[in-house]
C-alpha cells in the first residue's frame, strides 16, 4: 500500500460512490493538524547529499527513515539527517522509497548489503523479482562458505573429549591422529582387496577334469572364502566401531554410508546362514551381486566421489528432465520406426518395445548395427532420430557440469584453507595483532600511572608528550580494562609472562613468604583515591629475584625522562621477557615509582626526584614503600 500512498486522496475521493447508498451517517474524518506541507529533507550519507520529499519517506513507516527513529540522526546545525554509512548502498535503499521496489546491486557484497538493510529496517524479502534470484544465489553461496569455515573450526576443538568423541572424530577426519590415519589406510586397503577378489573370482583359470573352463572362484574356493571372511570381519568391526562412536546412533544408522556398509557385508552372513538350501541358492547368487557395493565404501576415502554424489543429488531435477525427455523421444521414434519398417521383410523391428533398443542405441550415437532400417522412410526417420538424440542429451549436461564444477571448486577452496601452512601463518598474524593491542594496553597502564606522577610534579611538557601517544578512545578503553582488573583483583599479562609464571610456580615452592609482602599485602588495602592503586596477590616468587637470573624490567623513571623514541625500545625489550605484575602500594597519596632495571642498555637513570621516601634500590623489591608497577 505504501507505494501508492500518493493515491490515497484519490481513493478517499472515490468513496463518493458510497455516500448516497449509505443508510447511516459516516464517521468523522481525521484532520491533518500538523500543517506540515510537503517539504524536502536532506539526507547526508557520508558526505553525499540525498534529497527527497518527506512524504516519500513516510511511505514506509516501519523502517528507520519513515519513522521517528531518524530524528536520532538529525543534525541541528546543518538541519539535515546525517548517516555514517555507505552512500553507494544507500542509493538502492532510497530508490526503494521512491519506487516501491528494492533492487539488489550486483557489485555489492552480500553481507554488506544485508547489514545496510538491517540498519535501515528493511527486510530483504521485499527485494523485487528482478533481483531476488541473484540475491538468493549469492546468499546461499555465502552461507555455504561460512559453513565450511565453521566446520574447519570445529576440528581445532576441545582437548577434553571422551573416548567416544575422539573415536568419532578420528573416523570422520583421518588427519587428526596417526591411529586414525592408519585405520583409514587399512580399511581402504581391505576394500580394494575385497573388490579385487570379487573380480578375480570370476576369471577363468585353467580347466577342470571335464575339459571345461572354470572360474578361479570355484577352483580355489577355500582361498577366496578366507579372503572374503577376512574382509568381512574387518568391515564388520569397522561398522560396529562407528556405530559405537556415533554421537547419534539413530542418525548414523539412517545415513547413506552406513546403509552401504550393511549392504556390503550382509550377503556374506546370509550366505553363511543358508549354504545348504538348494532352492534359495539362486537368490544367494543374486545377493553376491551386492558385494560390488563395497566399492562405494571408497567414497569415504575419496572426496571427489562424494562431490559427484552430492552433485547428482543437487541436480536431481535436471537429471529427471533429461530422463523424461529421453523417454518421450524414445517412445516417439520407436513407434515411428516400427511403423516405417513394418513393410520390409525379415525386419528386426518386430514390435515397438523391440524398436526401443534401436532408438536408444541411435540416440546415444552408439550405433551397434545389430538393428538397421531397410526402408527409405525408416532411414529418414533413423537419421532424424540420431540428430535429435545428440541435442536432447547435450541440453541438460552443461547444467550438471556447472553444478559439479561449482561444488568442486568450493571444496578445493576449503581444502586450501585447511592446508596447515596457510592456517598457521594466518593464525600467527592474528595473534600478533592481538598481542599488539594487549601490549598497548599494558604499556598504557604504566604510562597512565606516570601521567599521575607527572600531574603531581607538574611538568607540563612531559605530560603533553605522553598524552599524545594514546587517543581518547584508547584511553577510555584502557580505563575500562583497568576497572575490570580492579574488580577481579587480577591483572592482564601477556603470554610469555604468563607461561613464565606458571613455570616458576611449578619450580619454586611457596616457602617463607617474607614479612614485607605480607605487610605490603595488609597495607595495600588502603588505596588512595589519587592513584590507581590496586592490590594483587603476588606469588611469593617475586621475592626470590636473585634466583631468577637476569631480570628484564623497565625503568619507570626511564619512561619519565626519555622521549617517546626510547619508549619503543623499552617496549620491545618488554615484549621479550617480563615478569608478572607487581603491587602498587599506595600510602596516603605518595606514589613511589617502580624501580625496574634494564638488562641490556644500562642507562641507569638518576634517582626519581618525585618520591621523597623511595629508596632507589635496584634489584630488590622488599621494601613495602616501593611501588611496583607492572612491567607488562
Amino acid at each position, binding site marked *: *500500500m505504501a*507505494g*501508492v500512498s*500518493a*493515491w*490515497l*486522496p*484519490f*481513493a*478517499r*475521493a*472515490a*468513496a*463518493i*460512490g*458510497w*455516500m*448516497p*447508498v*449509505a*443508510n*447511516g*451517517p*459516516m464517521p468523522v*474524518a481525521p*484532520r*491533518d493538524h500538523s500543517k506540515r*506541507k*510537503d517539504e524536502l529533507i536532506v539526507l547526508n550519507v557520508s558526505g553525499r547529499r540525498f534529497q527527497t*520529499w518527506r512524504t516519500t519517506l513516510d511511505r514506509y513507516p516501519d523502517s528507520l527513515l519513515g519513522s521517528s527513529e531518524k530524528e536520532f540522526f538529525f543534525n541541528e546545525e546543518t538541519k539535515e539527517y546525517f548517516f555514517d554509512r555507505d552512500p553507494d548502498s544507500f542509493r538502492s535503499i532510497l530508490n526503494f522509497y*521512491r*519506487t516501491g521496489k528494492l533492487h539488489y546491486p550486483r557489485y555489492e557484497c552480500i553481507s554488506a548489503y544485508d547489514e545496510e538493510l538491517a540498519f535501515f529496517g528493511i527486510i530483504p524479502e521485499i527485494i523485487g523479482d528482478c533481483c531476488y534470484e541473484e540475491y538468493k544465489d549469492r546468499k546461499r553461496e555465502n552461507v555455504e562458505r561460512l559453513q565450511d569455515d565453521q566446520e574447519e573450526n570445529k576440528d581445532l576443538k576441545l582437548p577434553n573429549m571422551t573416548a567416544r568423541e575422539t573415536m568419532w572424530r578420528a573416523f570422520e577426519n583421518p588427519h587428526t591422529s596417526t591411529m586414525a590415519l592408519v585405520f583409514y589406510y587399512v580399511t581402504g586397503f581391505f576394500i580394494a582387496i575385497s573388490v579385487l577378489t570379487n573380480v578375480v573370482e570370476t576369471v577363468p583359470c585353467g580347466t577342470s577334469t571335464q575339459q571345461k573352463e572354470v572360474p578361479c572362484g570355484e577352483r580355489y574356493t577355500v582361498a577366496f572364502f578366507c579372503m572374503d571372511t577376512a574382509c568381512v570381519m574387518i568391515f564388520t568391526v569397522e561398522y560396529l566401531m562407528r556405530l559405537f562412536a556415533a554421537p547419534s546412533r539413530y542418525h548414523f544408522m539412517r545415513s547413506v554410508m552406513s546403509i552401504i556398509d550393511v549392504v556390503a557385508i550382509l550377503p556374506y552372513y546370509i550366505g553363511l546362514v543358508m549354504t545348504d538350501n538348494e532352492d534359495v541358492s539362486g537368490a544367494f547368487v543374486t545377493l553376491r551381486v551386492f558385494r560390488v557395493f563395497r566399492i562405494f565404501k571408497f567414497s569415504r576415502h575419496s572426496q571427489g566421489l562424494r562431490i559427484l554424489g552430492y552433485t547428482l543429488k543437487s541436480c536431481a531435477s535436471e537429471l529427471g528432465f533429461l530422463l523424461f525427455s529421453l523417454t518421450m523421444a524414445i517412445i516417439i521414434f520407436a513407434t*515411428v520406426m516400427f*511403423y*516405417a519398417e*513394418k*513393410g*520390409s*521383410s525379415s525386419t528386426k523391428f518386430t514390435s515397438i518395445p523391440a524398436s526401443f533398443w534401436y532408438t536408444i542405441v541411435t540416440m546415444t550415437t552408439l550405433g551397434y548395427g545389430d538393428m538397421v532400417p531397410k*526402408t*527409405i*522412410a525408416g532411414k*529418414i*526417420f533413423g537419421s*532424424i532420430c540420431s540428430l535429435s538424440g545428440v541435442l536432447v542429451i547435450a541440453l541438460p549436461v552443461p547444467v550438471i557440469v556447472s553444478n559439479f564444477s561449482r561444488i568442486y571448486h568450493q571444496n578445493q577452496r576449503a581444502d586450501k584453507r585447511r592446508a596447515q601452512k596457510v592456517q598457521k601463518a594466518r593464525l600467527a598474524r592474528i595473534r600478533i595483532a592481538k598481542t599488539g593491542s594487549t601490549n598497548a594496553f599494558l604499556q598504557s597502564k604504566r604510562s597512565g600511572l606516570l601521567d599521575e606522577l607527572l600531574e603531581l610534579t607538574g611538568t607540563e611538557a612531559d605530560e603533553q608528550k605522553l598524552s599524545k601517544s594514546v587517543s581518547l578512545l584508547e584511553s577510555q578503553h584502557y580505563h575500562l580494562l583497568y576497572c575490570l582488573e580492579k574488580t577481579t583483583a587480577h591483572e592482564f599479562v601477556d603470554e610469555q609472562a604468563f607461561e613464565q609464571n606458571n613455570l616458576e610456580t611449578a619450580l619454586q615452592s611457596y616457602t617463607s613468604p617474607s614479612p614485607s609482602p605480607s605487610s605490603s599485602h595488609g597495607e595495600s588495602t588502603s588505596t588512595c583515591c589519587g592513584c590507581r592503586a590496586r592490590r594483587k596477590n603476588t606469588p611469593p616468587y617475586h621475592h626470590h629475584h636473585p634466583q631468577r637470573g637476569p631480570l628484564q624490567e623497565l625503568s619507570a623513571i626511564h619512561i619519565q625522562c626519555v622521549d617517546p623514541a626510547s619508549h619503543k625500545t623499552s617496549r620491545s625489550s618488554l615484549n621479550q621477557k617480563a615478569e608478572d605484575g607487581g603491587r602498587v602500594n599506595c600510602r596516603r597519596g605518595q606514589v613511589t615509582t617502580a624501580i625496574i632495571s634494564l638488562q641490556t642498555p644500562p642507562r641507569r637513570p638518576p634517582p626519581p626526584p618525585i618520591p621523597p621516601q623511595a629508596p632507589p634500590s635496584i634489584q630488590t623489591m622488599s621494601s613495602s614503600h616501593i611501588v611496583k608497577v607492572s612491567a607488562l
Partner: protein
Amino acid sequence: GGALETWEVEGLQTVGILLVVCSSLKLMHFLGLIDLSSPDSIEDDFELSTVCHRPESMDKLQEQTKFTKKELQVLYRGFKNECPSGVVNEENFKTIYSQFFPQGDSSMYAHFLFEAFDTDKNGSVSFEDFVFGLSIILRGTINDRLNWAFNLYDLNKDGCITKEEMLDIMKSIYDMMGKCTYPNMQDEAPREHVENFFQKMDRNKDGVVTIEEFIESCQKDENIMQSMQLFDNVI
C-alpha cells in the same frame, strides 16, 4: 503374416514424407525464416505502453480546476510516480485501487470508477481526466458532487438508474468487504440494500431513478448531506 502390398509401403512412405515436410516448416518458422503465426500477437500490446502523455500546463489546469498550484504539484507527482507513461489504463487503475482494499475484491468498483473518470472514453485516464474528476469531488459544490455520483451509478449513461445497474454497483461495493465480515455477509444483502435505496429515491415508483429524483432525495437526507461535507478536507 506375408509381405505387404507395394501400395501399403508407398503409403507409409508418403506419410513419412509428409511428416518430414511439416516438421521442417515448423523448424523454419521457429528459426524465423518464415512466419506462420496468427494475426493477433503480443506485439500489439507493446504499442500501448510506450505511449507517453504530457498534461497541459499547470496554469491551464489551475484555471480549469479549483486546485492550487501546490495541490496540483502533489497530485501530479503521485500520479506520475505510479504511471510513468502519463496515462493509467484500466489494469493499472484496478491494481492501484486494490492496494487500498486488501481484504476484498475491488476490481468491479474500480472498473466503474474508471468508466466515470474516463470522460472521453478512450480507454485510459490521463492526468487531466484524473484532476477534473477530483476537482469536482473535492472542490465542487454539493450538487456537483451529487451529479458526479449519479454519473457513476448510471452505467449506460442514459440519464436514469435502473435496478440492475444499482444492483451491480451495490454488489461491487459489497465485494470490497470480502468474506470475513461481522456479521456474516449474506448473499441477499446487496439486493435488500438496493430495495432500500429505491424506496428512498424513487419518488414516482416507476422503477428507475432519474437525476432530479436523485438530487431531490439526497438533499432531503441529512446523513447524505453531512457525508458530502467529508470531501472538503481530503486534500
